[in-house]
């Protein structure tokens, strides 16, 4: 039984990792006041370009880097349209998702059916072999540690650094921040790019570590769940880890229930992650005070410096 629990935790962490990456990036983006619905598209772009990079060069870490870079480029299209051309953020984010899905499908055509060297979990002598906690703490693949590390850095950045405070100010009250002299647009560009890098990383994780494969639409809605995750976490990084494990866990849970022969109709169990997302959204959104306290006040609004 212990073995099953430990193994399940390991599998759940894998399932949670793409969500952690994407949600962390979107969190920073939204904290600066920009709502980018294109996460799904950016993840797919990251996945395909990361996979292509590894196929061509044979270096897994290069694939990770390529995925992040591709995500940045994709996000900058969105950034340019919304921050400089002042287009509607919701529509542009959707356009990015549609574009990203199409571009990744096209670019990925020649990579379907190919495979690469999968990114392996780490192994530290003695530490990984510790009973129970060994694998849970020291036995994941490197990208999981990267995700948690970046999440931690993000939390520290927002709370403890001046730059983080400026970011929050830009998201809460853009005109005031502008009046003080902060470059609102430039800061938002940076936040958008960070979101793109993270989404790209999340996608690259799918095609480099989760599976060593590329398939069209392989993110299968994870980008949207990441968006919900940010709301669930009330825009606080500390909650993102918990939320990602919950959402990832539900997917794994339904498979486990089937394998154990629990007899609950599989199609109903497959609905669980999505219904759970809705339930969580409702519960979180009800508390409008908390939402108001944590949600960036300028989320989704275009900013134009008046002369």
């Amino acid at each position, binding site marked *: 039984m212990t073995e099953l629990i430990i193994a399940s935790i390991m599998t759940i962490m894998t399932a949670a990792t793409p969500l952690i990456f994407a949600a962390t990036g979107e969190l920073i983006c939204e904290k600066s006041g920009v709502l980018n619905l294109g996460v799904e598209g950016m993840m797919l772009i990251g996945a395909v370009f990361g996979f292509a990079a590894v196929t061509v060069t044979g270096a897994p870490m290069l694939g990770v880097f390529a995925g992040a870079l591709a995500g940045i480029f994709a996000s900058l299209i969105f950034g340019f349209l919304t921050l400089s051309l002042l287009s509607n953020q919701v529509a542009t984010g959707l356009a990015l998702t549609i574009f990203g899905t199409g571009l990744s499908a096209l670019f990925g055509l020649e990579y379907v059916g*190919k495979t690469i060297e999968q990114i392996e979990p780490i192994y530290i002598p003695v530490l990984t072999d510790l009973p129970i906690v060994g694998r849970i703490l020291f036995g994941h693949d490197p990208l999981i540690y990267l995700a948690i590390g970046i999440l931690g850095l993000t939390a520290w950045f927002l709370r403890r650094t001046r730059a983080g405070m400026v970011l929050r100010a830009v998201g809460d009250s853009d005109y005031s921040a502008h009046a003080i002299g902060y470059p609102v647009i430039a800061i938002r560009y940076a936040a958008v790019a960070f979101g793109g890098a993270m989404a790209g990383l999340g996608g690259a994780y799918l095609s480099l570590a989760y*599976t*060593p494969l590329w398939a069209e639409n392989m993110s299968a809605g994870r980008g949207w769940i990441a968006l919900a995750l940010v709301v669930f976490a009330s825009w606080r990084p500390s909650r993102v880890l918990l939320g990602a494990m919950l959402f990832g866990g539900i997917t*794994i849970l339904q498979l486990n229930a089937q*394998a154990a*022969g629990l007899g609950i109709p*599989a199609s109903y169990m497959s609905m669980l992650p999505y219904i759970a997302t809705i339930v969580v959204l409702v519960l979180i959104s009800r508390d409008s005070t908390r939402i108001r306290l944590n949600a960036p006040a300028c989320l989704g609004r275009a900013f134009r410096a008046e002369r």
Partner: protein
Amino acid sequence: MAFAGALVIASGAASAEKLKVGFIYIGPPGDFGWTYAHDQGRMQIEKELGDRVETTFVENVPEGPDAERAIAKLAETGHELIFTTSFGYMEPTLKAAKRFPNVKFEHATGYKQADNVATYNAKFYEGRYVQGVIAGKMSKTNTVGYIASFPIPEVIMGINAFLLGAHSVNPDIKLKIVWAYTWFDPPKEADAAKVLMDQGADIITQHTDSTAALQAAAERNVLAFGQASDMIQFAPSTQLTSIIDEWGPYYVERTQAVLDGTWTSGDTWHGMSDGLVVMAPYTNMPNDVATLAAETAESIRTGAFHPFTGPIHNQAGELVVPEGEVADDGMLAGMMFYVKGIDDEVPN
């Protein structure tokens, strides 16, 4: 209109005398699974009859109204024989067939025929039985993880055949079944494999199409079976074997029939004996297991043995196939019950 004219001339001149054969694919030929196998069959036609035949394919055609249009388009552009390679193309194929009575259609895995619509399928369950025999011998935990796609007779038949094969050498084998509700979704297939392994399965088999499950198993050094094509390159030290869909012989035969003017409709359900089902080389197992597997496959191929030979009981314990008798094709084609030895219920 000039462009269109140029296009028509360009393709027309080359194919003036050749028979045009079209293919409708549900996925991309590069999937290394279901569609890949059909595409290999298509290429076999070109290899053997290329001087008299040319082929076209349309990939990623969704089932439904889009399919009817794609099929009709092939018919409109001079294709005389059209293969539609997914169950969900059944009604669209029949509808298109009505509109183009002079075109011949072949629908894979379907059950409705017409004067100009034939159906065909392969007896994959024969391969599943052989896999079961191997699993029965190789499993140490006596637990096999089965990643199933949709609860349709094809898949249930496969599960049953697998278990019958396993029990024939090891009555203690148990199956853990996960329904992925997809034919192709690598991350989900990987998750399913991991979960099954977490729950103690030490052999993984699948009825989904990607290599993800096989590779997830390989990562943990767990033995597994490939699907639809030989996936050995994806898991060189853990793949036991794979059921290879060999559509080539059938496709060539049917194309030849159209060339000869002898094509008629019907339902074809061939297996190992006609070369439609082939097992990939037996690897990563001791010689005696490989020999047993090869012998089992050979006995099925020659017709000496049928995987669904009685006595077979269903889950409720009723005798559905008496001793010494063989399940008829009708029972197999509509199989929606599990044989005894599976504890789960068939979904729905």
